[in-house]
């Protein structure tokens, strides 16, 4: 079975982003960029499926600028077999990414597609579900366990209040949640080897997909800052303030 994994290049999760002075967006110049953490979990899951002999090929795809090559090379160093960059300078929205991925799915015919549940920049949590709609596949979102069994996959999902397990007919779409696995680090020899792995470049146009944004960003602002309060010196003082000043207990 072939497994397709999509990865996104985003600002590193340790970077505290700042809003531009003209409120047009956030300032990412010189910011460290990395693979979206949920996408790392997706890559790891695909590699584990290959190690178990369930998958025979892991293909990674990214929709983004030329620099997203680095993100694909990271995935190749972790163990993916080949990469596809769908290169565009446009800020592609979830629906656009899903449409691009739909074309890649048509070409590659994977048995399973794994995506991160959400990117930590746009925080949309949409692409996997949208891809499932466009390809007419079943969806196992927010996965904490993925068990492939012949023609179907059992996905345990993190839902409000606990877990839900669903069975999906393959091919299917899975999006990852935090506890699915703990991603490995790439070893130096594997980083070197990854440089020789095949990486193909396409464009949304060559795939016949219009990725122009549908939603206009009018303005981006810093959130209202919360004022720091007071230090209390004892539990008794804390309880006193909660009763008298806050009135919440």
């Amino acid at each position, binding site marked *: 079975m072939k497994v397709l994994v999509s990865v996104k290049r985003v600002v590193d999760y340790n970077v505290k982003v700042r809003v531009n002075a003209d409120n047009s967006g956030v300032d990412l110049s010189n910011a460290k960029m990395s693979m979206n953490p949920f996408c790392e979990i997706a890559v790891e899951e695909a590699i584990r499926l290959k190690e178990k002999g369930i998958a025979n090929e892991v293909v990674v795809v990214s929709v983004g600028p030329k620099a997203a090559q680095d993100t694909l090379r990271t995935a190749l160093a972790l163990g993916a077999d080949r990469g596809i960059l769908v290169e565009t300078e446009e800020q592609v929205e979830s629906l656009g990414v899903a449409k691009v991925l739909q074309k890649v799915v048509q070409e590659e015919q994977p048995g399973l597609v794994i995506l991160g549940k959400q990117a930590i920049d746009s925080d949309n949590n949409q692409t996997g579900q949208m891809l499932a709609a466009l390809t007419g596949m079943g969806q196992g979102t927010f996965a904490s366990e993925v068990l492939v069994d012949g023609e179907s996959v059992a996905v345990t999902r993190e839902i409000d209040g*606990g877990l839900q397990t669903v069975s999906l007919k393959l091919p299917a779409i899975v999006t990852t949640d935090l506890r699915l696995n703990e991603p490995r680090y790439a070893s130096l020899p594997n980083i070197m080897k990854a440089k020789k792995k095949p990486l193909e470049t396409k464009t949304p146009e060559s795939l016949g997909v219009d990725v122009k944004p549908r939603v206009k960003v009018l303005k981006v602002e810093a959130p209202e800052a919360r004022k720091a309060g007071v230090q209390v010196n004892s539990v008794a003082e804390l309880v006193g303030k909660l009763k008298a000043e806050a009135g919440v207990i």
Partner: protein
Amino acid sequence: MSILVIAEHNNVELKDATRNVVAAAQAIGAEVDVLVAGFSCSDVAEAAAKLTGVRNIILAESKAYEHQLAENISALLLEVAKDYSHILAASSTMGKNLLPRVAAALDVAQISDIISVESPDTFKRPIYAGNAIATVQSAEPVNVITVRTTAFDAVSTTGAAQIIKVFNDIDCGLSAFVSDQLVESERPELGSANIVVSGGRGMGSGENFSILESLADKMGAAVGASRAAVDSGFVPNDMQVGQTGKIVAPDLYIAAGISGAIQHLAGMKDSKYIVAINNDPEAPIFQVADFGLVADLFEAIPELEAAV
């Protein structure tokens, strides 16, 4: 302009989140209907009919909708939601699972996790884990939107909407429900509790969370955790408060042993009062806390329990 709200429920009870989503819908326009899709869920429809200001309840009962499978419910929505200008659901795991599938099927963009309605086509939503707030405008014929429920005050229950049954029974055959493992708890739900007691990496282990649970039981509070505590394997992910977990805004939020990473703050900074208990005086959590106590939480938490 008319708005369809997807009810959040478990076939028995209407979840409170629906009341907040109806409030967001009413900020967009006056004609608000609620879809109750499930199985043997007429009690839920009755409860939804009482929500103030709702016009009609659309009730679709089928085995295919019992477990809110996105494949089947989105197919139902494509049938019943044709005439609406807006489709809204809570930004819960149910809403997040379902609505993007509906949006893509309608070939429209979705707007996730709105925190305010500026006009019927313009909304505010947090991005970058709440480090920035974007104002976005949609030009789509249908606006598919998930709502951050803590940002909207719940509507009351003085209504008397009409219940309209639809007989629709679509099972796509793409997915099947296997099982639920829900955490049975006497404590209030994390998302709607008035008081939340959360622990972080400083708790040291899952067993140590028992002191927070004991305090929570005394205060009638829900128990939460930071992502660090979840990643460390102390507690399950459904307890996670933060941008990648639940967004809460209780009257009182007590953070114990939580350093205050930006992604955690994004999940609780709208709480009315924040108490931080941490032995590190430099912890960033103190910058957002109304009341900060630099102390060993293993001494302070039992002392607090005794004092409240």
